[in-house]
C-alpha cells in the first residue's frame, strides 16, 4: 500500500491463537499495517481477516480498548484471543 496523507501506519502484535492470521508471524513480533485515517480497531481486525469473535482483548499503547476505539498514526495495537490462567 502506498502511504499518503490520508493513511496512517499502525504497529500490530498478534498473540496466541491469533498468530495464524499473519503468515510467518510469531507471538508478539510487531509488523506494520497502513490504514485510512479515521479507522477504528475493528477496521484493522477486518483487514487482517480475523473473525471479530476471536479477538477478545485489544490494547492500544498498553491500554485496554474496545473494537470501536479510534486509531491514530503510530499506535501500537496488541490483539489477544481469550487468555487466562494463573
Amino acid at each position, binding site marked *: 500500500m502506498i502511504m499518503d496523507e490520508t493513511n496512517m501506519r499502525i504497529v500490530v502484535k498478534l498473540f496466541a491463537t491469533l498468530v495464524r492470521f499473519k503468515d510467518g508471524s510469531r507471538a508478539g513480533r510487531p509488523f506494520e499495517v497502513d490504514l485510512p485515517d479515521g479507522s477504528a480497531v475493528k477496521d484493522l481486525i477486518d483487514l487482517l481477516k480475523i473473525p471479530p469473535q476471536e479477538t477478545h482483548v485489544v490494547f492500544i499503547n*498498553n491500554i485496554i480498548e474496545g473494537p470501536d476505539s479510534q486509531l491514530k498514526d503510530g499506535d501500537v495495537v496488541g490483539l489477544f484471543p*481469550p*487468555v487466562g*490462567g*494463573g
Partner: protein
Amino acid sequence: MAKKILRINMTTLKAAYEAVPEKWSRWAGRGLTSAIVCDEVDPMCHPLGPNNKVVIAPGWVTGSPAAPSSGRTSFGGKSPLTGGIKESNAGGLSGQMIAKLGLAAIIVEGTPLKGEWYTLVVSKDGVKFESAADLVGKGMYEVDELLWKKYPKTAVIGIGQAGEMKLSNAGISVNDPENKPGRYAGRGGMGAVMGARGVKAMVIVDTGGPGVEIANQDLFKQGRKKLTESIQEHGLTKKAGGLNAFGTAVLVNILNEAGGLPTRNFSAGQFEGAAKISGEAIAEVCEKRGGEGMMGHGCHPGCIIKCSNIYPNESGEAIVSCIEYETTWAMGANCGIDELDYIAKMTRECNDIGLDTIEAGNTVAIAMEGGLLPFGDAEGAFKTFDEIRRGTPLGRILGQGVEATAKAFGVSRVPTVKGQSMPAYEPRAVKGIGVTYATTPMGADHTAGYTIAPEIAGVSGKLDPLSDEGKAELSLTFQAATAFIDSSGYCLFIAFPILDIAKGWEGMAESVAGVTGLNITGADVIPLGKEILKMERLFNEKAGFTAEDDRPPEFMRNESLPPHNVKWSITDDQLDSVFAWVHNGQKA
C-alpha cells in the same frame, strides 16, 4: 456410607476413624480444612511446634464419577510463612483417591521422637506407619519412584529436603498421572508443617474403597452436564483454546502488554524478554523438540481442560512438568532471565527439593537486588537451588523465602503481604488484584480472588485495571466465589467459563448439591464462600493480625511503576471495607 475423618497421631503412632461431627458436615475442601484448623489449632501456636496440624481434604465432588476437572486436594494448617491460617490446594492423584476411601479429611497431628521419619500408607484397612529412613534426604523425584515400586499406581504426597529442614518455603508435593512430583500445595510452607510432624510421605491406596456416594443422581448429572458444556464452549477452556494450547503461561504476553508483568523484583511492569518465556514460546519448544514434550497435559484423571505441559530438553526428554505462568514469570521476568531451558531446570529443582516456585523465584530476585548475583544470571540462579538442597547456611536463608532473604541482604523493596510474596501481577498496574493480595487471609495470593479475569482477561465483563473504582467490592466477590470453588474440589479454572456462561455457574452448584444432598443453588455460592472467609479472618485475628496486616508494601506507594508510571493509590479505608462485614462494620 457416611464419610469419615481419619485422625493420625504421630506421637502415639496410632490412627482412628471418627464420624464427621455435625459442625463440619457441610464442608469439604478448603471449607473443611479451615473449619478444622479453626476448631483444633491454637492460633497462637508455633507453626512448627507440636500443636499445629496438617489437615487434608478433597472437595465436595472430588472422586465422583466424571465430574470434570475436579481432582483438587486442600492442605490446611497454620502457615510458617505468614503466621496465619493457610489453605493451599493441588491437583494430581491424591484428591480422588482420598475421596474414594470414603474420607472427608485426614488430620495429621502430634510429633514423633526426634529424628524419626515415617511414610504413612493409607488404605481401606487403615494406616501403616512405615519407617521412611530410606527416603530421608532424597528429593521428590526419587521418593515418588521408590514408593511406586512398592505401591504402584497410588497417590504419593510428600516433602523434599526443604520440608525436612522445615523451611518456610517448603511445599507439599502430589504426584501426577506419570508419577512425577509437580502438583504442589506450594504456598505458605505447608511442607514444613508436614516435616514437623515427622511425615516424609503419604501413600494413598484407594483399592477396595467405598467410593463417593451420590445423594441425588439426577441433580448431579444435570449439573455435571451444564458445567461440562460451559467448559467445552468457552474460548479459554475448550479443546485447543488458550489454556489447552499454550498453558497458563499464555498470560505472559498479555500482562506484559498491560504493563503489569512484575520485572526485576517489581521494579518495572514490562520485560523485554517476555515473548521468549511465554506460553507461545513453550508450545514452540514442545513442537520443535518433540519426544516427551507436550502441551495439553492433564494433571489428574478426568480433567477436560488440560492446561499442563511437559517441557523437553534438546533430545526430547522431559525436564519438568510443568512450567506454569507463575513459574516462568518468577524464575524469568522477575529475575531478568529470558532462557526457558534454565527456567525449566529451576522448576525441576523446586519440584524435587520441594519449594514453591513463586516464593523461590521471588527470593532469587531479592538476592539479585541484594547483590548476591546479577539480574539475568541464569546459571547463577540455577546454582542457588543446590544450596537449599544441601542445607548450606545460604541455602537455609534462601529457603525461608523473600522476607528472610531481604533481611539477610539488606533489601527494602520487599513485595510481600503477611509475609508471603506476590505472584505475577503488579498491583500498581492491576489494582483489583492488589486488593486481593492485601486483604485475603492467605497472604499475597492471586488465586484467592482472581480479579485479573475482568481486569485483564475480559472474563466476567471488562474493567479498567488501572482504575481504583469498585475494586474493593470486586475483590470480595471474587474471594467469596473462590472460597466456594476451593471447597468444591473443582479446579479454579472452571471460574472462567462459569463466570461468562450462566448455566456453568448453576451446574457447579447443582453438581455439588447432587453429590452432597445439601440444598445449594447458584445463589448460595457467595454466602457460603463468605462464611469460609469469616472463619479464616477470625483465626488470623486470634493469631494477632490487625488492619495493618492488610496493606501492600510501602514501596508501592512511593515508587512509580513504568510503563504507566503509576503508584498504589487505593486508600487504607477502601482496603478495610473489604472485610468490614465480618464485624458488622465495626473495627475488630
